């Protein structure tokens, strides 16, 4: 299209050369100079016409016309800066919001995972149909893993621990806290990662009690080992045990675990493998198909002795199938992100409705201009083209500013998000995002340009030249329809964000069950062979808490496996051993604690007693349960004195504490049946397993802020064990905030969009009414002259905006009734049909509508009837 064409002057030169040649030929035949020139001209025909035809045949003309239109359009936009700025800002905000959200969608759902051939990688979903149905990615137990590994030849399969855990690494004299991932043999093969030096884990190293080996990632190898090329075969002290380094991963090699180093998982059906504690990933072997793989998985897993999915679900049917890893990794965030994309789409529609209204008015105002151009011979197509070009210019301008807006919005958003919240490295504004923005801009220009274009088709030459009247009743109704539509969408957004706000309020005002003020906590990894011995573990806790109590200002110090608002380990099959519930099995969150735990956190003991120093390894096994546990399993009867698992006596009942759910994850925060046991009564087998998954917390309570508290806590721990660093310090308030971070971001984003929608709707109503006032100045003047009061005139004018908004409100409420049911799974403590929310939406919208109507109608008061009538 942009091929270099001849210039017009070159063409003229050629014609001139032709004429010269002809003239010379005629002169040779004996004609005079003058005669020769005339003859040459005659033979040539019309020079001008030839040049014109050349010009028209080239694409120059097309560009010239386009360029003319663009320049004219720019002049028109510049002459009307109020209109232009309003439109560009509206577009920038709406397109910017869309671009920002889309770039997240792009990074999460469209960008490929950073592995080789990610489309051949999968995760296994479990679909249960029956009285209790589910369809989700499950973790695997040891039996499932062995069957998957040995009986599914279509796949290369691997498992890992569910997440990387913090451990202590001793290299030389330094102790370093690192994230370690535990992976099976072939895990790196599934990811198609090959170490730059050394090798991946062998099958022998992945067997239970196999040799202890480790693979380092590039960063750790460089930072902790100075990129030593002779690292292979060296031993590092990890979790207190020697591990031989067998490989180093290439720079930038990503795994789902994002760990600093990897050790062999050594999975079995015992211990960790007796529960579903492994996460699997698979890669399709060359030549195999996914249906083959799925058939093999279903066959293999039907051979299991333990089919836990079917427990307490009589008549249920279970089916396994592979899902692309990309989808499985992002499943958690997909609904939220798509909801936001939908909301952003609403914003774009609302903006379009506004802009359609504005451009409609503009086109109507330009009726006489259009009529003049038509009268001067412009074709209707040329007029239409002019309008479309102006719309396109506005849309592109808006899109360009929108990219800037989205860049800022995205930076703000990523600051809001907790670290590692998004399972991707970054959210780029890449080519695909730019393409989306361009497409959105073009779509917007079509959407908001369509109505005015249609309206301007009907300009009647004679009547519009003659009269100065502008928009008729038809266009008013059209604009009211647009306003009603955008208000309806705004209502849906307002209601949705209102419900999410109510959910957040519910979660934040849940009684915590403890006193978080003045609590500082610190975690340390006890996943170390030294602390597998219960006596060493007890000593560590006793000495470190005793040392912390010596810190001036510290009132209490304690240790617990988990804190309130966190998840903890779940114990199933707790047998109730006496009373009428004897033989029943219970499932409960389980937390080991030192005696000071309830006192430090100020969790009220409702019945019986707290743990004491006397509850030790050789004494009566004891437990404390929370109120929910007591109510659920003892039905209100006193729990104190009852026995669990034959020999464990319940000695106390405490208040429920808000926890991140483990048993039934319906809400981000809830109270579950909980059992507390003394840390001093833990067995070696339990300690080694629990500390793979969880880092216990040291808790201190201070009356007022203590200078250098964390450093003093660290030295207190060092006095008990000089080689044990804390992995982090957390103010209890921060921990609580982090638990609800997802909800807070969701609320912030949706509320921001709802506010934007509300703002745009208000602008739309304002523009409608303001335009009415401007158009009807004369009519109002007459009304007032005939005895109407200013108030009556204002009501008369304002009615147009109010009635449109009212219609939109009703339609919006009806839409919400249907649409918001899809949000049910994101709502806690509030129903979909929540009267306060609906009331608030109605009130907010009414207030905004009235404001947007009254402000422009105030101009009615300034209309001077005498003046307006004289002007006619």
């Amino acid at each position, binding site marked *: 299209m942009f091929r270099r064409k*001849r210039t017009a002057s070159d*063409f003229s*030169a*050629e*014609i001139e*050369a*032709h004429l*010269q*040649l*002809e003239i*010379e*030929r005629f002169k040779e035949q004996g004609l005079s100079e003058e005669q020769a020139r005339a003859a040459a001209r*005659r*033979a*040539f*025909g*019309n*020079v001008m*016409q*030839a040049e014109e*035809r*050349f010009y028209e*045949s*080239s694409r120059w003309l097309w560009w010239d016309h386009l360029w003319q239109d663009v320049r004219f359009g720019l002049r028109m936009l510049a002459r009307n800066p109020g209109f232009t700025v309003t439109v560009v800002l509206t577009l920038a905000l709406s397109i910017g919001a869309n671009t920002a959200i889309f770039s997240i969608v792009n990074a999460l759902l469209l960008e490929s995972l950073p592995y080789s051939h990610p489309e051949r990688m999968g995760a296994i979903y479990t679909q249960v149909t029956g009285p209790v149905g589910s369809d989700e990615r499950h973790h695997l137990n040891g039996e499932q893993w062995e069957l998957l590994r040995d009986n599914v030849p279509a796949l290369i399969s691997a498992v890992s621990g569910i997440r990387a855990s913090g451990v202590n690494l001793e290299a030389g004299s330094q102790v370093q806290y690192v994230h370690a991932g535990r992976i099976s043999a072939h895990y790196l093969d599934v990811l198609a990662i090959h170490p730059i030096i050394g090798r991946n884990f062998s099958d022998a190293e992945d067997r239970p009690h196999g040799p202890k080996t480790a693979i380092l990632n590039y960063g750790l190898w460089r930072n902790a080992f100075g990129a030593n090329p002779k690292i292979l075969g060296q031993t590092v002290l990890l979790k207190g045990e020697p591990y031989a380094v067998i490989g180093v991963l290439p720079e930038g090699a990503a795994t789902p675990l994002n760990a600093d180093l990897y050790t062999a998982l050594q999975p079995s059906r015992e211990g960790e493998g007796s529960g579903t504690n492994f996460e699997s990933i698979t890669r399709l072997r060359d030549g195999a198909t996914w249906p083959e793989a799925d058939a093999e998985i279903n066959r293999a897993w039907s051979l299991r002795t333990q089919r836990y999915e079917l427990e307490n679900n009589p008549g249920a049917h279970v089916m396994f199938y592979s899902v692309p890893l990309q989808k499985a990794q992002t499943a958690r965030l997909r609904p939220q992100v798509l909801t936001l994309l939908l909301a952003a789409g609403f914003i774009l529609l609302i903006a379009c409705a506004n802009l359609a209204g504005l451009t409609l008015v503009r086109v109507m105002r330009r009726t006489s201009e259009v009529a003049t151009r038509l009268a001067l011979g412009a074709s209707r197509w040329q007029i239409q083209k002019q309008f479309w070009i102006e719309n396109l210019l506005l849309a592109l301008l808006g899109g360009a500013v929108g990219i800037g807006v989205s860049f800022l919005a995205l930076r703000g958003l990523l600051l809001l998000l907790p670290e590692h919240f998004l399972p991707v490295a970054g959210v780029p504004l890449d080519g695909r995002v730019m393409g989306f923005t361009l497409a959105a801009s073009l779509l917007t220009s079509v959407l908001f340009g369509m109505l005015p274009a249609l309206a301007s088709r009907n300009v009647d030459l004679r009547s519009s030249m003659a009269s100065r009247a502008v928009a008729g009743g038809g266009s008013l109704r059209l604009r009211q329809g647009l306003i009603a539509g955008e208000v309806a969408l705004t209502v849906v957004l307002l209601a949705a964000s209102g419900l999410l706000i109510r959910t957040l309020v519910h979660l934040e005002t849940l009684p915590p069950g403890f006193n978080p003020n003045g609590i500082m906590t610190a975690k340390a990894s006890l996943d170390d062979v030294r602390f597998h011995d219960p006596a060493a573990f007890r000593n560590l806790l006793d000495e470190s808490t005793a040392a912390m109590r010596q810190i001036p200002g510290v009132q209490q110090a304690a240790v617990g496996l988990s804190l309130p608002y966190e998840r903890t380990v779940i114990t199933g099959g707790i047998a109730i051993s006496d009373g009428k519930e004897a033989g029943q099995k219970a499932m409960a969150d389980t937390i080991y604690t030192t005696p000071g735990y309830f006192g430090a956190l100020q969790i009220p003991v409702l019945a019986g007693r707290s743990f004491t120093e006397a509850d030790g390894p050789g004494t009566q096994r004891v437990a404390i349960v929370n109120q929910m546990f007591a109510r659920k399993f003892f039905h209100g009867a006193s729990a104190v004195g009852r026995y669990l698992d034959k020999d464990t006596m319940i000695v106390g009942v405490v208040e429920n504490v808000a926890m991140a759910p483990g048993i039934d994850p319906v809400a981000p925060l809830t109270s579950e049946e909980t059992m507390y046991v003394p840390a001093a009564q833990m067995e070696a087998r339990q300690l080694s397993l629990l500390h793979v998954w969880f880092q216990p917390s040291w808790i201190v309570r201070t009356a007022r802020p203590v200078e250098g508290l964390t450093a003093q806590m660290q030295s207190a721990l060092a006095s008990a064990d000089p080689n044990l660093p804390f992995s982090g310090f957390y103010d209890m308030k921060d921990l609580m905030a982090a638990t609800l971070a997802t909800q807070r971001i969701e609320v912030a984003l949706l509320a921001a969009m709802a506010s934007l929608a509300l703002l745009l709707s208000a602008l739309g109503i304002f523009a409608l009414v303001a335009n009415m006032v401007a158009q009807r100045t004369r009519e109002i003047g007459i009304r007032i002259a005939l005895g109407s009061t200013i108030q009556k005139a204002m009501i008369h004018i304002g009615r147009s905006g109010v009635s449109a908004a009212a219609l939109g409100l009703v339609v919006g409420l009806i839409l919400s009734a249907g649409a918001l049911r899809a949000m049910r799974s994101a709502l806690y403590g509030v129903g979909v049909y929540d009267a306060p929310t609906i009331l608030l939406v109605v009130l907010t919208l009414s207030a905004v509508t009235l404001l947007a109507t009254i402000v422009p109608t105030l101009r009615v008061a300034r209309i001077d009837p005498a003046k307006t009538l004289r002007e006619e």
Partner: protein
Amino acid sequence: MPTREEKERLALLQGTLDLLILRTLVFGPQHGQGIARTIQQTSEDALLVEHGALYPALQRLEAQGWIAARWGTSANNRKARFYTLTQAGRKQLVKESTRWRRLATAIGRILGPEAKEG
């Protein structure tokens, strides 16, 4: 001042000018005026080529890639734009002339043998 003779020249049929230009260029590079003169002379002045119409046609052929153009000097040392037949132009010429011959034969058959004017 057009003569009687000139008036009786045949106007070109639509699309034949392109063919004639291509044919003319078979003999080597030529400028516009030369092409016009050659067509007129080889048709023994039977065909009327308005020189002005030639240039849009040349323009079109150049855009199609059938001829290429370059500024040069004419026999009598004047600057002129010379056109050359390209490989694609040669093919086009063969195609077009075959088509034209078949068309002429077919029309000739329909019109029948030339009637003698009595």
